[in-house]
């Protein structure tokens, strides 16, 4: 299956596999650990793994952006949030709500569905060696076809920043 294809780049696959395993394990821990801070740290691990996958997928700029924005800013925000909401240090029991069992079947079924669809659609599709895209191409895309979304995103960021300030100020 995964590894039983011709012209397979063994190294890429192995690298992918290791990173994927780590990511899954870390993601699973995020949602099951009893320690909030540990959850945040496991999330960092996930995000890092995602960045590595980006590199494997020949999307360096995205990978770097991921690292910088997500791990650098978002995680810091999370940690600030954890701190400011006086999360308990150490394990605490009541992190799962009363109906958390419901999530299992939902998740499983959803995964089953998605897996079925994906395998059904993309079975045995092989991705060949690829050269990474140059960054200019990326910027060309951003600043021409996607100019309006780019500006909109900037507004969104502005609104979010102002909104966050407005929301969180002490009145």
């Amino acid at each position, binding site marked *: 299956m995964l590894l039983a294809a011709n012209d397979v780049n063994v190294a890429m696959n192995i690298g992918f596999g290791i990173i994927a395993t780590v990511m899954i394990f870390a993601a699973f821990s995020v949602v099951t650990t009893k320690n909030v801070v540990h959850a945040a740290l496991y999330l960092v691990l996930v995000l890092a793994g995602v960045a590595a996958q980006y590199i494997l997928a020949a999307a360096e700029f995205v990978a770097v952006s991921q690292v910088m924005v997500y791990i650098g800013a978002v995680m810091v925000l999370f940690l600030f949030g954890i701190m400011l909401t006086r999360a308990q240090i150490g394990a605490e029991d009541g992190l799962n*709500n009363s*109906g*958390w069992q*419901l999530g299992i079947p*939902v998740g499983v*079924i*959803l995964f089953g*569905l998605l897996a*079925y669809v994906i395998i*059904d659609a993309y079975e045995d599709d092989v991705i060949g060696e690829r050269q990474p895209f140059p960054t200019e191409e990326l910027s060309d895309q951003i600043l021409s076809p996607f100019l309006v979304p780019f500006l909109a995103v900037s507004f969104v960021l502005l609104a979010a920043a102002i909104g966050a300030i407005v929301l969180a100020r002490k009145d």
Partner: protein
Amino acid sequence: MLAVEETHTALELSSGWFMENAWLIALIPAIGFALIIGFGKKMPFKGAEFGLSSMAASLVIATGAGIQWIQRTDSASPGGEEALGGLFTGVRGAVRAAEGAEAAPYIEPVVTQWVWWQNSGLEFGLGSHIDGLSVLLLWLVAFISLLVQIFSLDYVRGDRRYTHFFAALTLFSSGMLVMVMSSNMVQLILGWEIMGLCSFMLIGHWWEDAYNSHSALKAFFTVRVGDVGLLIGTAILYFGANDFAVNTLDSNGFDIRAIGAWALSGEGSSWTLLMASIALFIACIGKSGQFPLHTWLPDAMAGPTPVSSLLHSSTMVVAGVFLVARIYPVFWEGFNIASGGLSFIAVIGGITIVIAALLAFVQDDIKKVLAYSTVSQLGYMMLGLGTGAWLPAVFHVFTHAFFKCCLFLCAGSISHSGSHHSFDMKKDMGGLRKKMPITFWAWIVSTLALTGVIPFAGFWSKDEIIDNVGANGYTVLFWVGLGGAALTAMYMTRATYLTFFGEARGAAAGIHHDDGGHDEYATEHRETLITAATIDRELVMAGPAPQSLGAAAATHESGDRGDHRDDHDDHGDDHGDHGDHGPHESGKLIVVPIVILAFLALTAGFANPTPLAGDALGANLGEGVELIKTYVEPRYEPVFVDETAGHAGESVQLIDASTLPAVEDDGGEGKSDDGKAKCGRGTPEPGTVCYFPNVKHAVPELGKILLSLAVVAIGYAAAIGFCIAYYRNRNSRLVGLTERSRIARGGYLFLKNKYYLDALYQNVFVFFVSRPLAKATYWFNQNVIDGAVNGVGAGGKATGNWVYKYIDQGLVDGAVNASGKAASETGHGLQPMQSGKVNQYGALLFGAATVGAIVLVILNVS
């Protein structure tokens, strides 16, 4: 001998304008009535003009109809076969072959009818039906009514309701004429009822006095009791005769001739005929005052004298006799008069003769004497009809009307001019023969006619009845009739003596006392005896339950205040003509009718002097002198009806008399019976109908005539002797007999109290109906009928409640509520979904998305 079915011979009978338009005879008085009611008060004679003129017109038309009927009858006899030009009228009689036998064909009556009722095959009409009987009575009623109205012009003058009096008299005449000329039972009943209504109105003419209005009610209700029989009898006859009438005669079950034909055809069961006869005769008992429903007639004397003379002596009370005579075939077959058995009619007639005659002896009121005399004479008529003496009975109706009306008018004349409006013989009359000679002689003539003295009218009619009764084999009733004749002589003598002979008493002597005089003939103790007057008033006015005689006597102490009501104060406001206070002869308007009637009382008998038709009295004038028999008595010959023709009588066949079966005669005396006795004594041949039975006519014999005259003479002698002894000489053995002898007193009281019949009727029957029966009926009505209705209502209410509770509230509302509840429960059930918890929402969101995705995948992949 001619064979049957050979030639057709039509019997052409003459008709005439008067006969065909005889309905005018009844219509004109009806119009007169309307005119009097409408315009009477404004007329110079206060409406009497209309009455008199209408009765005169009726009399003229009736006379014309009578003459034309005589012509018609003559035109059918062998001598008058030539056609007198005229119309056919339905069924034709057959002319017998010339075999030497006298042809006495059935004379078809003249019928003019308008359809009154028409519905699904049943059709009867209103109109006139002229045959001998009806034309005789039409003329009689018109004549008597005219005379009485002339009499009333003077007699009722000044009365407070003069106009309405004439209106009621005219309406009565119209009603009786309607009845007499009717061709079907429905019209007969109509006329009957109109008469009853007018009788009520007229008896109660001075209704301000309660006694008068109670008498009127008593008359009406007593006759009503009998009228139930009339309706039942009509119904029985209708259902019995209708099939026969429709099939054979193209008629219906109400038609009187059809009923007669049916009765004689043998198709009616004897039980039906008997029931119908009894029912109809009960009506006659009521109307004609037979025992036991005679009690209303004496109290009917409360009305003014013209009313008594017209209604309650000559015309209305003979309506019952007329009914029997009219539908005679029904009674003939129903009571088996043919076989000579004792019939119900004859028995009642005989009883009535005697009890009424006995009651006439103890009356102080002259009108009451005459009333009981009328009842007794009606008994004679019924006796005659019940024993098969149809002709003498009808003839007696004819003659009795004259002399009885004359007697009543004389009584009126006496009270008007002689006894200052009093009718009490003992108190206010006496010795009037010198003061009122015309009235006296008219009275004497009428009395002689009444008692049957030759050659006055009553002899020819009443003695014929008695003769036929004896000849038909009824020995006991024969002697009853003779005894009744003797009694008649006796009580009339008493009345005559008290009125016209002896010393003048009270008002006749010119003494006026407004509180009534006292009885000159009363002994001291007489006052304490109960007199009929008190009993009359107490019972008629439905007083308290009868106390014992003694107690009533005790309350009678206050003198004779009760007695004087016998006076029948019949002067409303009139004290005008009291110029002279003594008795005097009445004015011309009163006297002329009396004289006319007295003359007729003398001569009317010669209309049918049967003894003169034979050898009995020596002068044999032939059968032609029997005018009533020739022209009034219906013929008993069978009449052919062609059943194959759609209309009865389209073709006529010769009847060969010899081919018809000869039924054995019942041994009647030879001459008056024909060789073949068919109708009424056997079933008629197929194809023929009989309209009248073959009644027997007795042949008078000198011996019987002398016997009856002797009986009457004995009666007169005894009575005259007694009157002289008792009233003039005050024979000590006779005076006070009723006080001394217990038997005499008992008999006297029994008679005075009218056999206690009034007490029986009032206190037993009426009381029973008005108290227990009414209470029971009321109980039934309230508890059973109302209970049923209430029950239905309660049931409905309970059903409604149940439906409301279980179906409306439970089922319908339940369904509605359930749907609402389902909705709310669903909402409640789904409410936990809205927990407000984000996690849950997220779960739902992703779950729903998953499900949607699965669906999409499945749809797209499959």
